[in-house]
């Protein structure tokens, strides 16, 4: 394979989050509009400077990115729409970075925003994909709950993970969330509470599930020189990967596409897992954290339960994960869920954490995982970010 060009001179900056709410009477354009306005406010740029837009939303239909630019009066020369759920934070970054690098755009606004009306989550499930509509929604799967129950059941049987191990991650993330102002869950969670929660789709219980909500996240991609001129703190993109529909012959998903590409990710970044100071996993159900620990090289396949047992996972711990609380504690704002980890990682490496900063955070890893269609998450992605200076 051709050696991939590095993202030299390209930076990520201006992380913004619009505080989440469980239900919203606003439309998706409102949430996207607030995020764009926050980008304008925090960057000091006028919106006509955004000559590239990469957007995602799961509640914008019938509109797409075209509707976004018309609605908000943008006139970009580069426009991308990435309806890919949980990988969008990373995917938007890597596409925008290449566009800027090639000169197709100078400043790309990457934005994810979703509303959440009563029943919109169910409607979204009903119409999520053709395979979903034909082969899972009609048999009662309460959306992703059952799909992740299968993965969790299989993983527990095969590798000996226990509910306590998942609980440890959920409890640690909740502790992180207590310091993050926008988290929807602001009460401490104990392991006892986790263990005694009601079953949803066994072995998945209440606190294994993310809460659908409304919210928006965004950031900018531009040249380093531009960021310096504007006086913006920035992070560098050391490496990224993206993979879709990997390992289709695995009867149940026990590894993601990361396992195919993690060598390339670290190779491109010139770092190893030991260099990672914090990890924003895609945590839509805690079993996926374990898959990422393994597939992104922190331990071998099947060893994630032991890895979890051997580490403290809070912001101040030996292996900080989901430093803002992750989707499990902040909420899952549709496509915003795919951006949450990326935006938090940009904050951490630029010293702008809204919650607790990871001490001396230099290098962060972001995992993306998305689009549970039929029996598995189809998309995977990851990025390594580093502090700008």
């Amino acid at each position: 394979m051709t050696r991939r060009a590095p993202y030299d001179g390209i930076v990520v900056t201006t992380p913004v989050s619009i505080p989440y709410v469980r239900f919203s009477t606003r439309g998706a354009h409102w949430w996207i509009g607030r995020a764009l306005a926050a980008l304008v406010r925090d960057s000091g740029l006028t919106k006509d400077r955004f000559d590239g837009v990469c957007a995602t939303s799961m509640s914008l239909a019938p509109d797409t990115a075209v509707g976004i630019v018309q609605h908000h009066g943008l006139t970009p020369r580069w426009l991308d729409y990435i309806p890919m759920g949980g990988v969008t934070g990373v995917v938007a970054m890597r596409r925008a970075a290449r566009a800027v690098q090639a000169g197709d755009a100078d400043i790309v606004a990457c934005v994810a925003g979703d509303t959440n009306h009563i029943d919109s989550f169910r409607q979204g499930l009903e119409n999520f994909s053709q395979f979903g509509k034909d082969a899972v929604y009609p048999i009662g799967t309460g959306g992703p709950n059952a799909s992740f129950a299968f993965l969790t059941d299989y993983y527990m049987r095969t590798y000996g993970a226990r509910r306590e191990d998942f609980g440890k991650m959920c409890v640690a993330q909740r502790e992180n969330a207590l310091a993050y102002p926008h988290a929807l869950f602001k009460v401490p969670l104990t392991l006892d509470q986790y263990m005694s929660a009601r079953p949803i789709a066994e072995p998945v219980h209440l606190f294994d599930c993310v809460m659908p909500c409304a919210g928006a996240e965004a950031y900018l991609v531009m040249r380093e020189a531009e960021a310096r001129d504007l006086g913006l703190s920035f992070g560098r993109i050391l490496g990224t990967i993206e993979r879709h529909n990997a390992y289709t012959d695995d009867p149940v998903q026990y590894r993601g596409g990361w396992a195919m590409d993690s060598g390339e990710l670290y190779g491109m970044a010139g770092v190893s897992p030991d260099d990672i100071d914090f990890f924003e996993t895609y945590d839509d159900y805690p079993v996926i954290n374990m898959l990422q620990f393994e597939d992104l090289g922190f331990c071998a396949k099947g060893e994630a339960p032991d890895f979890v047992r051997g580490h403290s996972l809070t912001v101040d711990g030996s292996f900080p994960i989901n430093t803002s609380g992750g989707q499990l504690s902040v909420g899952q704002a549709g496509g915003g869920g795919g951006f949450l980890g990326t935006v938090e990682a940009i904050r951490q490496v630029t010293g702008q954490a809204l919650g607790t900063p990871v001490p001396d955070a230099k290098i962060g890893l972001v995992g993306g995982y998305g689009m549970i269609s039929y029996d598995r998450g189809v998309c995977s992605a990851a990025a390594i970010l580093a502090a700008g200076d």
Partner: protein
Amino acid sequence: MAKPLTKPKRKNPVLRTRAPMLPPAPRSRISLGLTSGAARGAFELQVCRDCGAVQYPPREACRECLSDRLDWTLQSGTGELVAHTTLRHAMENYFRERLPWRLGIVKLDGDGPHDAPSLIVHVHGDCAEPPARVRIRAMLDRAGQAVLLALPEKDTPHMSDDPQMRELTCDPKFRKVFVTDGKGPVGQAVVRAMIAAGSDLVWVGEAAPWKKIPGFEEIRALPEVTVVDLDVTNPDSVKRCAGQIGPKVDILVNTAEQHRAYSVGGRYGTENARAEMEINYFGLLRLAQEFGPVMMARGADTETNAVAWVNILSIFALANKPDQSTFSASKAAAHSLAQAMRAGMHRSGVRVINLYPGPLDVEWNQELRPPKVTPAALARSIVGALQGGAEDIYPGDVAKDWYERWRTDPKVLERELAHGE
């Protein structure tokens, strides 16, 4: 092991009759091929004609070689349950009212060149914890669409009493059955088969009380049987009968039939044809108008709800048998009406089951050579259909032979029949 069903208590008349909720019915057009197979009781998946890969979920092109030559092909259905879950929460009311609900992933056995697909399926309560050997069946759900059910590798006691299985079947056990005409040999056989299958109350229609038919007094004497007056040619009679028992019928089996064996020119005039239409077509229409709505209202009425409407049509409904021309035409009319009944009754979860038997071994088929379907065999097919998950049944060798020919090319069959083949 499934808990054996106990005889349900009498319904509390004060309680509201629950409205029938359905599992989600929308499917892509391509995936309706699965329903087409399940309607016949067959578990078929697309198999690529070019590379042999088995496909699931249904798709428009082969996942291995991108060929679009995907043929729906009968599957053995054996496989391994590799993961499972028990839902305690559901987004859709149909499932919400029926929790807990067991689902699983089954890796289908494969001997082809490519890996067999994983299937997400309903899981029978008697299937062991994963990993466990299972059999997959394609069945119609209450919305009339195909779903897959994993059954334990070997039958278990009372397995049809499993609540999830019972949602996919129309089992006569503890259900109240109405056999619209119990006097003929078919009606009598159906009554006995329903009782043997566990129905504890069978209403039996009698159109002409003065006719003494051999065997009927024995039927009348059975403890489960109540004889009711019903002449399907008489609108008042049908209305009276429906007023009397309509709100209690869980399964209606329409055995009323007029059958003569004449070619178009074999019997001058229309009297004979009119009599066949009067019972075989208009009789069905009258029954559908009087019994249909009240059965639909009871589509989810306790665990012994209204579940099925059974039509005994004929394989001659699909292609006219020239020496039984008017009978064939009346059955074709009934077949057409039954399609419309299905479209209406699906909304309530009541399944319209059509049987298309080959010639029955009855008086008016005297001159036909065997094989012929005995009334007892037809009755067994009806019970099998109710206990299974299908809606179109072709009992007997002639019916299966004709059906294959009809599916392959109805024109060829028509020409063969015209030449007496």
